[in-house]
Structure formats: structure tokens, C-alpha cells
């Protein structure tokens, strides 16, 4: 395998940061914003009898947090393969035992 050109590394990192920013924004919207800031207006809607804002704060946000982390892992895997930086048996970082 030939060494990667420098611009590939930069693009990989830019794509990584973009992905993280989008997911953090969704995290903020489904968690603090919908569950706390907008809880009163959202409580006017009901989810099977449970006020929607309350449900987001005590149930919905937690489910979506789990989904967000798995989506991140899946997208990161795809990006690693696209840029050929995924780990193989020889290229996984291991702890260096001192001495």
C-alpha cells in the first residue's frame, strides 16, 4: 500500500469534524432543546396520553441518544474504509508497556 497523500488526511479530518458537528447539533435539539427549552409548548401534544415534552425529557431523548452513538459508529466505519485508514491486525494501536 502506498503512503496516503497529505490532502486525503486533511479531507478525512474535515469530514470527521463535519459528521461530529451534525450529530452534536441533533443531540442538542433532541435533548436539551426539546426536553427542556421547548417542553411547555411540546406538552400541548400528547403521545398516547403522555405529554410529548415530558416524554422526550424522560424517555425519547434517551432512545435517540443511543441511536446517535450507533449512527456515529456506522458512519465512521464507512469513512474509514473510504479513506483506507481503517485498522487491520497490524495497524491497530496497542498500549506500549513501559520497559
Amino acid at each position, binding site marked *: 500500500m502506498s503512503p496516503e497523500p497529505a490532502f486525503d488526511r486533511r479531507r478525512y479530518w474535515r469530514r470527521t469534524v463535519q459528521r461530529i458537528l451534525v450529530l452534536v447539533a441533533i443531540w442538542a435539539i433532541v435533548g436539551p432543546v426539546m426536553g427542556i427549552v421547548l417542553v411547555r409548548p411540546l406538552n400541548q401534544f400528547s403521545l398516547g396520553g403522555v405529554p410529548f415534552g*415530558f416524554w422526550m425529557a*424522560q424517555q425519547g431523548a434517551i432512545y435517540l*441518544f443511543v441511536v446517535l452513538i450507533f449512527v456515529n459508529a456506522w458512519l465512521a466505519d464507512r469513512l474509514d474504509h473510504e479513506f483506507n485508514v481503517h485498522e487491520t491486525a497490524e495497524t491497530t*494501536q496497542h498500549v506500549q508497556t513501559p520497559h
Partner: protein
Amino acid sequence: MGIQGWTFLIVGITFAVYIGIAIRSRVKDTAGFYVAGQGISAVGNGMATAADWMSAASFISMAGLIAFMGYDGAIYLMGWTGGYVLLALLLAPFLRKFGKYTVPDFVGDRYDSNAARVVAVVAAVWVSFTYVAGQMRGVGVVFSRFLEVPVELGVLIGMVIVAFYAVLGGMKGVTYTQIAQYCVLIVAYLVPAIAIAILLTGHPVPQIAIAEILPRLDAISVDLGLTGYSSPFTDLSSLNVLLITLALMTGTAGLPHVIVRFYTVKSVRAARWSAGWALLFIALLYTTAPTVAIFAKYYMLSTLANRPIDVVAAIPWVQNWMQTGLITLRDANGDGLMQAAELFGAHGLPASIDRDIIVLALPEIANLAAIIIALVAAGGLAAALSTASGLLIVISSSIAHDIYGHILHPEASDRRRLLVGRIVIFFAVVVAGYFGIRPPGFVAEVVAFAFGLAAASFFPVLVLGIFWKRANKQGAICGMLAGLGFTAFAIALIRSPQIFGTAEPIMPDFFGVNAQGVGTIGMLINFAVTLIVSLLTPPPPDHVQEMVEGIRYPRVRRVSERVDAVT
């Protein structure tokens, strides 16, 4: 067989399993002792992280707290789960790629400074000790309540068990026992929750059954003169709910005993997936806890409220818990009836029911067999022991690896480092047990704020250390000291009656923010100070910038690829 017999049996079996695992997972080197040889699978680490994370407080106290707080209890539900998103996105994979043993390791290497390393060690040890004392106390309380042994003896038994598997197996032993402990605690939590859901609604899934109970709970609460259960911001202002939630989230992402779990997995890829598994396993308990709160509160209000005090006192489960002192029926207005406000404490009245019994008494309330009550005891012990052991590893690695191995005796052999690690962990167990038996008054006060302090000290320097190459030593040290200093100072002023014994708080709040939420402001100060001081001082040396470049890519670069490393 009665409750005590079953409890002895089940607790005995679980302890035998933990010891069996410890003997099978002895370690021979520091890599095994501190990071389990980096051989843990993503799912296994997810379970271990969930057990490590969910403490005696999550298991025993959280549902009760939420039952009393209603909507506002969301600060704990969102705060203690949302942090994992930040951890998975911003920290875990990069710190795994870094590939060392501890959080102070990263701070020390990234900021090229032993001073920064020492600040991180002090913060890690301090946060961990205050936290671990509460866990040992929790072990003692569960023992005394279910087996009627003195709290001190209970703490001692817990100490012996933890010392055995932590000294022998280090992180490897701790990880495999945590996996077993997760299985015990989650079964112990879900079985009573499902049983009470069926009892009240006939539907076995608690998360769905609340749709039937919550509207009734809201209605009965208002009828009985309490505020509606799902109405927001009854105890806390919306600003405080937001800032406390953010402090708990960023504090979670910055807690050393959670972060080091992601050092133990096989690869960077495994670290990313593992965070998802961890939160999934946590979410099983964290989405059930609010349903337990709703069921228990509805059941108690509908069966106890506005009943004559002697009728209430004659209910068998009420009688049992009155004997332990956790229910004290207080008829404040002397009319012979127990009003809702007298039961749950509202309008300035003290509560008759202790919060902790919401979880502990649930099996009795739902008329479950003695074996389930015994399982809940074993679950509480599993939650406390798993968290305690994870914290003890952090204390041991911070002192033995970072201080002894890195600063005092960098030339020490691996065998010697391992021996020091074992000795430190043994003494840490003894100190933690001592605090568990004789908790200093400040401990309870400090534990509640450990998250704010972690948020204000670790989170910003870790995130900036990965995402901003320009962040340097001066910035990080000033940032950590400013964030930690501001937060500790603000907490001390707001909580001065509890900490210094002043008659009135020196400062009632910080512009409307209470002591728990002030950590978020400390965190923002840390970010700002680190940014400004870094820009005013020279950039970090080339080898640090190259290290940062290295942790951003999962694959280890070969020599031929390092030509244009610094960009």
C-alpha cells in the same frame, strides 16, 4: 425459605461467582492490570461500562428522587445518559488511539507537562475517593437492611470482596466481574418493574404501560393538592434544569473511571461501537427508572392518601418499612388522616416516606416472592461493588502509574510497577472502607457536586486537546485551575451553611444558577481561559502536534507515511 434465607443464598452465589471470575482473570503485567491487556470486546466493554457507571445511587435512589421531583427528575435521566453521546463522539475513539493507561497520561503527554499531569491526578483521585466512599456506604446499607448485620460489618465484607478481585486481577478482573454484575443488577431492576406494570395495567412493558398511568397520576396529584406530576419546573427554574443537565452531561464525559473503560477495548473501531452498547445497556435501566417512579407514586397516592393514619400503619409493607425508620407517618395537621402533602412532603411539610424505599419496597408492594426481594438486594450490591471497583482502578493507576511510574521512578521495571499498583489499590480499598464506615460530613455534600467539578476541570481540556492543535500547556493549566477554582468557590459560597456552618448562604445563587448547575459556567470559563491563554503564548512543540495528528486517524501510520504529518 424466608426473605433472609433467600438473600443469604443469592448474595452468596453472586459473591462466589465474582471470586471465581477473579481467580480466572489474574494478571501478570501492568497492561493487564490497568487496561485489561486491551482485549475486551465492544459488547463486553459496553456491559462493564454500564455496571461501572450505574452506582448504588442509580440503582437504589434515582427512581425515588424522580418520583418526588416529577418532570424535574429529567435532569438525572438526560444528564446521566446524554454525556455518553459527547463521550462517544468527542473523546472515546481518540483517547483509545492514544493508547496509554490513564486520563492524566493523556493530559500530561498532550500538554507536555508534568504540572498538568499532577493537576489531573489530583482531580481524578479526589473525584474518585468522594464517589467511592458513597458506594461502600451503599454496600453497608444494603447488608444491614436485608441481612440485619451492622453497617460496619457489611462495609467490611464488601471491602474484602473488592480487594480480592481488584488486587488479583486489576482492570481485567474488574471488567469481567462488572459484566457479571451488570447481568445481576439489570435483572434485579427489571423484574419488579415489569411485575408492577402488570399489576397496575396488565401490560408487561413498563415504558408502554406509563401511557395508561401517567394521565391518572397527573389527575390524582392535582386532586390531592400536589402539582401535576408531568408539569415542568415545579422545584427548579428552567434555567437551572438546563444548566444542571448540561453539567451532569459534560461531567459524565469527563469522569476518569468512565473514560478509562474505553482504553480497554481492542481497537478504535471497538471504542466507537462500545459506547453505543454501553448506553443501550444503561438505557434499559434509565428508561425503566422513570416508569418505576410513576407506578410507585401512583400506587402510593391511590392507596395511602387521605386514609386514616392507623389504617395506613396497619398495611404490611408500611409496617415493615416503619421498623427500619424509612417510613415515619407524620400527621402534621393532626386530623388523623394522611394527606398527600404529609406523605410526600409538599408545602413545607417533611415527607413521611423516605425516597430510597421506592425501589427497595417495590417487590413487597407488588406482592412478589421472597426470592425477588433477595434479587433486589443482590442487585444493589452489584451496582455498588462494580462502581467501587472501577473507581479504585482509577485511584491506583493515577498514583502508581502517573505519580510513581512516570514522575518519581520512570526507570522502574514492569514487575515493580505492577506490585506498586497492587499495594496502592489495597490501601485505596482500606481508605474507601474507612470513609464508608465513618463518612466525613463533607462527603455527601461533595459527591453531589463531583459532576460539576469534573465538567469544569477535565471536559474542556480533553476536547480542545483533540480538536485544537494550538491548545498548549499554559492554556490547559490556567483553564483547569480557573474552571475548578471558580466552581469550587461558587459551590462553597452557595452551600456555606452545609460546608462552613454559616446561618445563611453567603451567596444564595450565582445570577439565579444553583450550586449543581454552576459547573456548566465553570466549564465555559475553562474553555474561554484555555483558548485565550493558549493564543497569547507560543504554540505547543512539534512532537505534541504530531501526537495530536496521530490520534485523529484510527490506523497506526507507518514510517513512510509520517513525512507530512504536521499540517
